[in-house]
């Protein structure tokens, strides 16, 4: 799915959780968060939940005062895949043309792009999972149990892929640790 980062940011733009699946140094992170947060927070509820920023597509969702932002691959990956297709001599363009320059992207390339709607639901799943663990999760829960929120995320996402979607599976190790 190509998740590049997961951010939780409150309405005031304060970061509450940040997890990156590619390495960015402190400066880059700070800049990126600043830009994205400004962009997303400026949007109203009527506006689309997907925002493009630099080479990311940011899928965000708001829960109460907390914004959940997930950055996924955008064109960068697309162009990488384009390259791949070129190398493999796969047709990217619809050569028949059909009248206009309908640049049909090869489905394979398109498949590599994340499904934003799935990401949107992933966010919801994350919130539901936290809710199950904390019980009526709120921003404070995440602040006081930052490491647990991270643990959950670690169970759900590895290498930028969603690997686990079963709430009980996600929470099992965390509960075991609590008991220990």
């Amino acid at each position: 799915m190509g998740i590049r980062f997961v951010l939780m940011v409150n309405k005031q733009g304060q970061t509450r959780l940040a997890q990156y699946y590619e390495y960015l140094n402190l400066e880059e992170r700070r800049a990126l968060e600043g830009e994205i947060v400004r962009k997303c927070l400026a949007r109203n509820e009527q506006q689309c939940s997907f925002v493009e920023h630099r080479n990311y597509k940011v899928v965000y969702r708001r829960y109460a005062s907390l914004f959940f932002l997930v950055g996924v691959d955008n064109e960068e990956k697309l162009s990488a895949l384009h390259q791949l297709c070129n190398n493999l001599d796969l047709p990217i363009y619809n050569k028949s043309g059909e009248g206009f320059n309908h640049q049909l992207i090869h489905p394979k390339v398109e498949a590599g792009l994340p499904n934003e709607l799935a990401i949107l639901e992933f966010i919801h799943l994350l919130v539901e999972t936290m809710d199950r663990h904390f019980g009526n999760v709120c921003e404070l829960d995440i602040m006081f149990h930052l490491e647990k929120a991270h643990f959950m995320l670690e169970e759900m996402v590895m290498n930028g892929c969603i690997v686990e979607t079963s709430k009980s599976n996600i929470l099992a190790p965390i509960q075991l640790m609590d008991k220990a």
Partner: protein
Amino acid sequence: MGSQGGFGQSKEFLDLIKSIGEARSKAEEDRIVLREIEVLKARLSDPNTPKFKLKEYIIRLLYVEMLGHDASFGYIHAVKMTHDDNLLLKRTGYLAVTLFLNEDHDLIILIVNTIQKDLKSDNFLVVCAALNAVCRLINEETIPAVLPQVVELLGHQKEAVRKKAVMALHRFYQRAPGSVSHLISNFRKRLCDNDPGVMGATLCPLFDLITIDADKYKDLVVSFVNILKQVAERRLPKSYDYHQMPAPFIQARICMNGLEENLTALQNAYMDIPFFKEAGKIKLLKILALLGSGDKKASEQMYTILGDIMRKCDSTSNIGNAILYECVRCVSSLHPNPKLLEAAADAISKFLKISPEIAEQHQLAVIDCLEDPDDTLKRKTFELLYKMTKSSNVEVIVDRMIEYMISISDSHYKTEIASRCVELAEQFAPSNQWFIQTMNKVFEHAGDLVNAKVAHNLMRLIAEGFGEDDNTADSQLRSSATLKEKFAVQHAGLGHEKSSERVESYLRIMGEPKLPSAFLQVICWVLGEYGTADGKYSASYITGKLCDVAEAHPEDDTVKAYAVTALMKIYSFEIAAGRTVDILSECQSLIEEMLASHSTDLQQRAYELQAILNLDAQVVEKIMPVDSTCDDIEIDKSLSFLDGYVRQSLENGAQPYIPESERSGMSNISDFKSHEDHESSTHALRFEAYELPKPSLPPNVPPVLASSTELVPVPELSYVSDILQSATSAPHASDAGSSALKLRLDGVQKKWGRPTYSSSTPSTSSTDNIVKIQSETTQRDSVGNSDPKTRDVSYNSKKQQAVEISPEKQKLAASLFGGASKSEGRHQKTPKPQNHTSDKSRAAKAVDIAPVKTSQPPPDLLDLGEPSITTGGPTIDPFKQLEGLLELTQDATPVSGGGVGTADASDFSSLFANMSVSVPSYGVDNPVSDVINGNGLGGSTVESSVQQMSKGPNLKEALEKDALVRQMGVTPLSQNPNLFKDLLG
């Protein structure tokens, strides 16, 4: 639940969290964090720090780093904590390390050992923690250190371990495919794992593998289908259901994998998750199962199902339309089936409700989207327009794009739009004039963002235009018109025409302090080539301008180089024409300055110029033939004419030349780095950079040219200029210099005016020069017939847009859509009607879908969110907002004021209701409110906040709860449904 019980967070920690939560500004937050850094430095360096405290310190470090401050002083402690025996500490340590370090950090080496040990642990949780770290911290070099253990863990009895081991392998594959190439069969094995979690995770690496080479994994299709069937038949554990939908995430992934066999699956993957959830009823599972099974059978079955869906679709609801749309997309990507196509066409007409007015509305909606404040919508709309651009609507669309491009500041997207403008202009330009105009605009506003190739393309186009004049004597009249046209446009800003208007725009452009370098280069080049060609302007006028350009950009060597070369051309034209050259004093000083330039390139150019000035007319004419940029030039690559000189020098005792590659310790001038290999590969002066790549050239040359991305060929050796002074070599260099500018473009596939990727316009398919002209003219003719209308419309609509009357938009729409269809009929061979319609439907879709998207989040969530936005006024203390999260049904606190008034019981904004209010309402047994108070609020802080909020009466109670909560730990746990709503609604 799990968060219950004491987790030993200290008061200090609670205070920290509270103060961070309460911070009103970034500055305040920074102060808090800086103070915290000092505290942590002291604490961490204290050897007596107890272990359990250490974990908390590390988490505080996480905060420091998360809030944008450097926590590197504590990294080593995080590393140390990974060694701990306590599982929780270990995992926290690993977490911190993964968050702090990248895989190439020096400290990683200290962890590899720990990871190795942990991978062998009996406790599977320890193994899991280590595998998590493996996925983040192991780089290519350290893979071998853990690989054997990871592979072993693939067979671990705990599914969680197997899953993570699979992902670790996946990671290795991403990092260094070679390192695990022999282990790929393991992925196949794990796909058949008993545990659905492992199976699901395995889909990730398999997806990568299949994307690269589908054929190798065709045999897995059966497995995919089986898995899908299991999913569909709900044979997975219930825990994988998501909103009553069986394992949607796995389905989506499988769809993507299965799609290698059947393209449609993709579309369904898109449909899958959201629509299932929203629409609920549609039984996509079966389709998905069928999709994977591949080939004819599946397709046939799919036909019926798709047909069914299309028939049953409820086109009154957004979701129904969305599904319908997906079906149509599905069908269009399938192997054509007449019946289904018919059905699709039906669906489309249903979609458009058959009425053309409605379709028009959709078109208008597209126009609206262009003006929508939502940037995402705008971008999508431009993407749509980009895809539906044809020669008939290219002007309107590119106009719009440029307008938008000017308006945005996001350079990433600006670049994209600019390159799209260029691409469209190259493919569909109705006329040379328009093309050049457009390019000028793009350059003016995004010159530094567009590829340098584009500038070269433009110059080549101009040059070719002139070349064609020579080649086609019979069309002289017309082509000279073209020529003038180009001239006029190109020089619009350069005072080439006498009209004051031109001069004004010239002044405007030249007066702008920040013209993009690429644009200036084009200007200089054109001035040099053609500035004096028609005699309107004196050489001294043009040279004066060129000097101005060079002087105005003292740091930009490339521009200066272009300017000098242009000067050289103008002077040589003058000399060749037998006129006496009168060098302006500013030119003289410019040349002198460049003779001493640090840039050898500039130096050489200046010397060349000087040399040429001293030559007589005949020689100069040979060196610099007028308008020769398109001529082929023969180049003696081996420089055989120098052989005698070399021999003589050697005889006189000179050292033989040693190619740079064989020399060591040569310091390279950084500017010329890109030419290094170049130099070494040719073992000679880099003359070939100037040369014309002809098909007949030896094969090694084009790559060389292609590899050098620099605009200006830069000879490296300083004595080059001396050699160049000999008349023989100069012509090669200087001539080719000008031609090289365009020659570099040869990497560019697309030729202007000829869509290379679409065969749509028959007249544009030829590459021959003469035919080119003809086609251009025919194109222009046809444009002449059909275009003015469209153009008028677009101009009108633009003018009147300020009024924003819908007729104007309609016109714009007409120029976008209507005009499009018209020209499609005219210019192109029988476009499939379906295409056009689907195009429309797409447009319509963009419109329809967008609202769907935005309105998608279930109302319950938004219900909570919205009010909190409106009421959560900035005046309110953020921490109170936090409290608000835990908020109670009771609102109506005097403090929250207006916000509260509007908020209903379940409303978030009542969050602002302070804790004191909440406390009473909840009663003692409500731990949550206590928590709020307890959460790190010292009694005094509580008091102060209470005072702030004037909640006097409840203070006491609040404090009591505070104490209570602190005993319990700080987690808000409440059975209160309203609290539940806080995040989740």
